[in-house]
């Protein structure tokens, strides 16, 4: 029925589909290349963090909400976009976009109010608020109502949209693209850039361990029990980057922009499984031992990967030496440098051990976007590629 609707609307629209809308769509498709998409969303996040007092005003936020909804609904008239949206698997994505937006607004709205009040020396929103309620009847009734509403919602959802179950796996007929459940699409996106043991085990493990470790690393009592951004700009920014960009945006990317053969498509682009996409990836070792000598054309440095052991180093360590130096510098030298410059105050406040844990978590979080951007821009495959031991970073 929805399809018929769409066809009706599309046919009505058909005559007027002028060049403007097409040009708009292709512009959006172009901007949705991942290097722009992730960069732009990150920029958007930075702007949002800087101007949180403006956009959280109910009127401005309502305007943004209306504009986004208009864009979203208008996009549904595009066949390719609508195909993605209407898939029962992807309905939660729409909810996720709205819920993430709403919760972010709610938090930052209260932070903006509190920061204003703090500046004027007035009591905070939370001060004096007695948040104790009676278990009976207040809490139990609230829970009951929530339970009934959620159950009703789930029942209706389960009836209206059929569960996307598919026939048993068949090696001759593989869904293309093969997508994980929507909430794992961010992790599946990581698998494109990292070895399975990093993307599937280490990074999710670090997310969980890191969230558990947060209260032990961050001893600063400011912001406990009340919303504020002015008092905790760094931690909130890092968290928002980790959650909104590295989790939600990657889910959106995996849902809307990943098509057949796991190629990247714009949201308004037809999923053509035969669209050519050249992705010739090279390792850092290739760059250092092959590309660099070729460019320099030195008489004493011939291009070619080293395959002989050097002193006590086996051949693969010689081959991967440049990548190992890069990764080692990032993980072990950069924190020393940062502790003396940018993170000087943090280092002084939290001490050596906490700083090490802090850097472990922060460095693994930021190696993800670093590697993504390097892949998109330079087709960089692995810093260190010791396939002999399945050790690829």
């Amino acid at each position, binding site marked *: 029925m929805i399809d018929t609707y769409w066809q009706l609307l599309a046919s009505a629209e058909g005559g007027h589909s002028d060049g403007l809308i097409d040009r708009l769509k292709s512009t959006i498709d172009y901007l949705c290349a991942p290097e722009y998409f992730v960069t732009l969303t990150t920029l958007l996040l930075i702007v949002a963090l800087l101007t949180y007092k403006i956009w959280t005003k109910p009127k401005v936020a309502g305007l943004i909400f209306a504009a986004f909804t208009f864009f979203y609904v208008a996009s549904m008239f595009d066949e390719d976009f609508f195909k993605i949206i209407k898939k029962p698997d992807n309905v939660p994505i729409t909810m996720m976009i709205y819920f993430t937006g709403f919760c972010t607004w709610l938090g930052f709205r209260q932070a903006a109010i509190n920061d204003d009040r703090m500046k004027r020396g007035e009591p905070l929103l939370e001060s004096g608020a007695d948040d104790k309620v009676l278990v009976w009847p207040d809490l139990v009734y609230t829970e009951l109502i929530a339970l009934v509403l959620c159950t009703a919602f789930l029942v209706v959802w389960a009836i209206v949209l059929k569960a996307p179950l598919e026939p048993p796996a068949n090696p001759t007929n593989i869904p293309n*693209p093969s997508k994980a459940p929507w909430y794992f699409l961010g992790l599946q996106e990581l*698998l*494109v850039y990292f070895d399975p043991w990093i993307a599937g085990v280490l990074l999710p493990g670090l997310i969980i361990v890191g969230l558990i470790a947060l209260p032990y690393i961050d001893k600063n009592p400011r912001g406990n029990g009340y919303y504020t951004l002015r008092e905790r700009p760094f931690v909130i920014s890092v968290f928002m980057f980790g959650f909104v960009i590295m989790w939600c945006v990657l889910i959106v990317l995996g849902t809307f922009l990943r098509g057949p*053969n796991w190629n990247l498509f714009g949201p308004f682009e037809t999923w053509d499984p035969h669209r050519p996409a050249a992705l010739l990836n090279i390792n850092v070792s290739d760059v250092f031992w092959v590309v660099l000598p070729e460019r320099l054309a030195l008489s004493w440095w011939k291009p070619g990967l080293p395959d002989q052991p050097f002193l006590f180093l086996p051949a693969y360590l010689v081959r991967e030496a440049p990548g190992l130096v890069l990764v080692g510098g990032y993980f072990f030298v950069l924190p020393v440098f940062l502790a003396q410059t940018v993170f000087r105050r943090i280092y002084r406040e939290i001490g050596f051990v906490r700083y090490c844990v802090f850097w472990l978590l922060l460095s693994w979080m930021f190696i993800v976007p670093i590697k993504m951007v390097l892949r998109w821009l330079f087709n960089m495959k692995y810093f260190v590629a010791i396939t002999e031991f399945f050790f690829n970073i």
Partner: protein
Amino acid sequence: MATVEVVTKVWIAPGCIVCDACETTCPEVFEVQHDNETCVIRPAALDAEFTKPLTKTIKEAAEECPVDVIKFDTIKVEMSDEEAAKIAGGATATPAAAAADAGAESPKAEAADKAAKASPAKPAAPPKPKVVDPAIQALLAATTVRGGHPMINRAVSDLPEPVRQLSKMSPEELPPDGKFQRVLEKAKPKQEEPSRRDVLLGAGWTALALGFGVGPLLGFNRFMAPNVLEQEDPKVRCGSLAKYAAMPPGEINEDFKPVKPSGFWIIREEDRISALSIICTHLGCIPSWLPNDRKFKCPCHGSGFKPDGTNFEGPAPRPLERFRIYLDGDQVIVDRSRKFLAMGPNDTAVWNDPEASIAV
């Protein structure tokens, strides 16, 4: 003036059988604690001034105690006749509250109290001769044997038939002497309900025993079966060589992709045919062959492989694996029990192994 012997200190020696006799006789001083399996002296009675007026009943209680654990010290004091009579008369000095308390607990004590009130000045009467059943006499004799409850139980079992009958009778049918009833009750074999701790401990030990005992037994069960691996024949007969030799170089034959447990493609290179595993070296998805693009492309994470299986795009770290392939007469046979693993796109020397391909 008369010289009277008064009790200054009372204590309980070890060996109490919790028979209630002392508390029945003198509730002001003795308290039977069934939980602790002993009787104790009430705190107030640790004072000599408190025990003095109760001398008579304390002595009675000590006398009645079947196991003789009630001990006391006495001193001789001189006092007026009136006071002496009071002490000899027993519990008249008992505070009313204590009397009421005692009355609630034991009708006999109340009766004694009433009797004492009725004749306060009566001189100490000689102890009532106890007329009891010889069976109970025998039972009491058994209780005085050193050794506590086990001895009593044994004594009951060794006793003549009338006594055993008595021990089986219900308390209502017993002779009307409360303390002996209690003795008999004590003599009965104890049937305690298991406490929560006992149940939990029992369950814990049982689980442990099951874990350490039955678990290994089940494990050993595996050795009852022959030690063989159930799997498909790794060798697949793929038809005559002519069919594959006729393919143009770079062509892929997908006929054996669905073969279980691991399928393969038969590929034609310039001068040889080989068998490529269909498992992506990145995370084990199954790539699709895209004839127009002339590449294998994995739908899960976008790894791409050239027609000879070399990885060139996406996250796959190694080329597709190759299976052993050989000729049996004219028949091409792929043996999936042996793999040839190239470690990188530039490290494919292992493919030159004579078993990794058939020269055409």
